[in-house]
């Protein structure tokens, strides 16, 4: 297949890192200056408490309000967390300068070596989150990546920026299993693609089906397997594909409240990540499986359990679920009180989902 698009996104990943390092240095510089003036160092950051998290109707995502908290070395209770924050900042600079990647788990253990031990993993994660909110970059921008890995398949050429692989290229059709979206991919530059859309799939079996049925070729799509809730590196990559390559994004998950939420978090983010603006893809479209599909296609289904109902009640009130087609579909769930998996389409044969269902749905959404 001829490459249709000459991509102009080169240098974006490098620029992000450069900007990230700049803000990391600014934090350290500020601390050094304050100490030199014999002032107790202090760092300001937006408050991440619930009373400062708002849903921005325009952006269709959670954002932080104006409330600012201040960590100061004058307060003995702040000293350790502030030192840990400055240390995490230093670790971030090190990772970027040495072009190495790390994980939250690593950070937890590295702190012990510095006699800055965290009580537990959540405490260490919290400091990294604080650093994100101070320097206004997700941790992936200073090379701290999640353990969970999604994968991708499709005609996309990337160029690595990680150490030892600088300049090396990869096409994502190389393995029929898909290629893992790890730190190296997340930090790569997009070179070229013939795809004109991105299809995000919750489950591994369905992802493999889409590859086997040549869905990527027939629909000219990049396929991404989230493996459940999409890790932040994956959400960030989806956004980049959408923003840098102008590819529309379609989201495909089980017909239950959990599947809905996997899609919603990709679209409008989570309250937990309200301090990071560039993790969302507001234009991404939920492509199914809808509650109405269960009826329309007479899909094999199971009864909603108590937890499902409770979760549905929660998301019905959630501001992120107020626009089309969410309220109607949620209402339908309450009516039929049933849920279905993506695999349920197999009752019509293995190719049905790609041949018929996907075709119809994409036509509906593109029109």
């Amino acid at each position, binding site marked *: 297949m001829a490459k249709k698009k000459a991509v102009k996104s080169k240098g974006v990943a490098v620029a992000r890192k450069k900007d990230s390092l700049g803000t990391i240095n600014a934090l350290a510089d500020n601390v050094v200056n304050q*100490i*030199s003036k014999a002032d*107790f160092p202090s760092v300001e950051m937006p408050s991440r408490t619930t009373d400062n998290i708002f849903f921005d109707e325009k952006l269709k995502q959670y954002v932080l309000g104006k409330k600012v908290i201040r960590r100061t070395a004058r307060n003995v209770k702040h000293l*350790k967390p*502030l030192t840990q924050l*400055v240390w995490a*900042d230093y670790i971030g600079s090190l990772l970027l300068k040495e072009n190495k990647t790390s994980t939250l788990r690593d950070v937890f253990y590295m702190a012990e070596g510095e006699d800055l031990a965290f009580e537990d993993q959540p405490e260490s994660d919290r400091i990294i989150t604080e650093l994100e909110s101070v320097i206004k970059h997700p941790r992936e921008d200073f090379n701290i990546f999640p353990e969970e890995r999604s994968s991708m398949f499709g005609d996309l050429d990337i160029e690595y920026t990680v150490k030892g692989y600088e300049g090396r290229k990869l096409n994502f059709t190389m393995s029929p299993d898909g290629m893992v979206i790890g730190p190296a991919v997340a930090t790569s530059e997009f070179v070229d693609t013939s795809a004109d859309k991105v299809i995000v799939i919750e489950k591994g079996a369905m992802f493999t089906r889409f590859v086997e049925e040549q869905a990527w070729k027939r629909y000219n799509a990049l396929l991404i397997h989230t493996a459940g809730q999409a890790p932040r590196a994956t959400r960030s990559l989806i956004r980049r594909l959408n923003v840098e390559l102008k590819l529309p994004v379609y989201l495909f998950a089980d017909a239950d409240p959990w599947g809905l939420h996997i899609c919603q978090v990709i679209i409008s983010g989570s309250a937990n990540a309200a301090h990071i603006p560039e993790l969302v893809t507001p234009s991404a479209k939920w492509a199914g499986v809808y509650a109405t599909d269960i009826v329309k296609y007479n899909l094999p289904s199971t009864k909603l359990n108590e937890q499902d109902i409770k979760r549905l009640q929660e998301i019905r009130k959630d501001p992120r679920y107020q626009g089309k087609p969410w309220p109607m579909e949620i209402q339908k769930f309450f009516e039929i009180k049933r849920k279905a998996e993506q695999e349920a389409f197999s009752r019509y044969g293995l190719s049905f989902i790609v041949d018929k269902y996907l075709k119809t749905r994409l036509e509906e959404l593109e029109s």
Partner: protein
Amino acid sequence: MFVSDNGTGVPPEHVPQAFGQVLFGSKYVLRQMRGTFGLGGKMAYLYGQITTNTPLRVVTSTGSKAYEFSLMIDIQKNRPKVLERRLLKKQKKWRGTLIEFAIEGDYYRAMPKIIDYLGQTAMVAPYANITFIDLDGRLVRYTRATNTMPKSPKETLPHPLGIDVENLQRIIEVSDAKNMLRFLRKSFHRVGDATARQFLSTTKLDPRRDPKKLSHEETVELARALRNYDGFLPPDASCLSPLGEDLLKAGILKELKPEFVTVESRKPSAYSGHPFIVEVGVAYGGGIPAGSISLYRFANRIPLLYDESSDVSWKAVNQLMNWKRYNVDPAVAPLAIVVHICSTKIPYKTVGKEFVADRPEIEREILNAMRDVGRRLSGFLSRRLSFEREKRRFDVFEKYLPKMAKYAASTIGLKTAPNIKPLLVKASALSSEVIEGGEEKGSEIEGSGGS
């Protein structure tokens, strides 16, 4: 046993009675004395004589000449038997008394109490050097911590409220007064002409009666009347010799080496015509073992070693004081309490003279003194607590500021971290604001050992 001191010495003419006759001593005048009847030393020798039948050797000098005596006690007659008396050629200026005699006993069983006794004596007599060499040649030495001595007690007449029939008969015997009025004025403490007349007017006795001619019944009646009359002036305390706050504190610091000590000398008080003064010290931490409160009891500067739990001080410490109110957990606190009672008559419960009765007047004084020192201890403990809290606070600054400076400097590629000393000075100023507070009386953060 060989004992020597550098005291005033004994005039040679008194030596036979002083060392060879039980119950020798004048009790017609009163003052605070270690013993009461002059019994202790002689009982020790008497026991030696009974068990070994060897004489007592006494060498004494009041400053000029020195004499050596060898004597025994005629137990039947209670008379001294002087075996030898000679004038010694003095080599140096020496004054004092030295005695030596043999005694049979189980030293190894008695040793712990002997050491306790000497150590506690050293506590209550911080102006004394005490050297003890035991049977095995072990040397135990208590060094003086001060050259100041407490003021000597003045002799005083007995107070009428403290008189019993026996006393009264002896006083009448030695009095040269020819009538009751004069007898009362000359023989009793704080009784003048007016008081004597007023007192006699409440009795059937004629002020002109010759006291030596009172019948036995009249003597008994007089003793009772004296004890029950409420018009006498209270006794004054010039006959007492309390240790004083400075000496008591020096003694406690020297022997217990506590972290904190405070003492309280109460004003003189009286029970039944007997003046007394209570002195209480409390010592905390340092060399004091934790676990339970150590109680040191003294009566007229004599350590009381036995029957602790029958003593009024034990009752005050363990039953009357609510230590929790003073920030002290008596079960774990490294706490020592020192109680010194001095009086012309210590109200011992038994003839063994090992524990003091819980006379309400004495109990009240002990308790008041204990509450005073308890409050000061409580103040010290809460100051120390806040001091420790501030120390821990400052430690946090000391630990984290250098790290913060180092990481921030490394991040932006600086070779050396910014100087955090000025910030640490600021941090310590933040800390000391909290612990500043007035020094209270008697408080010491560090035990100096009182050299």
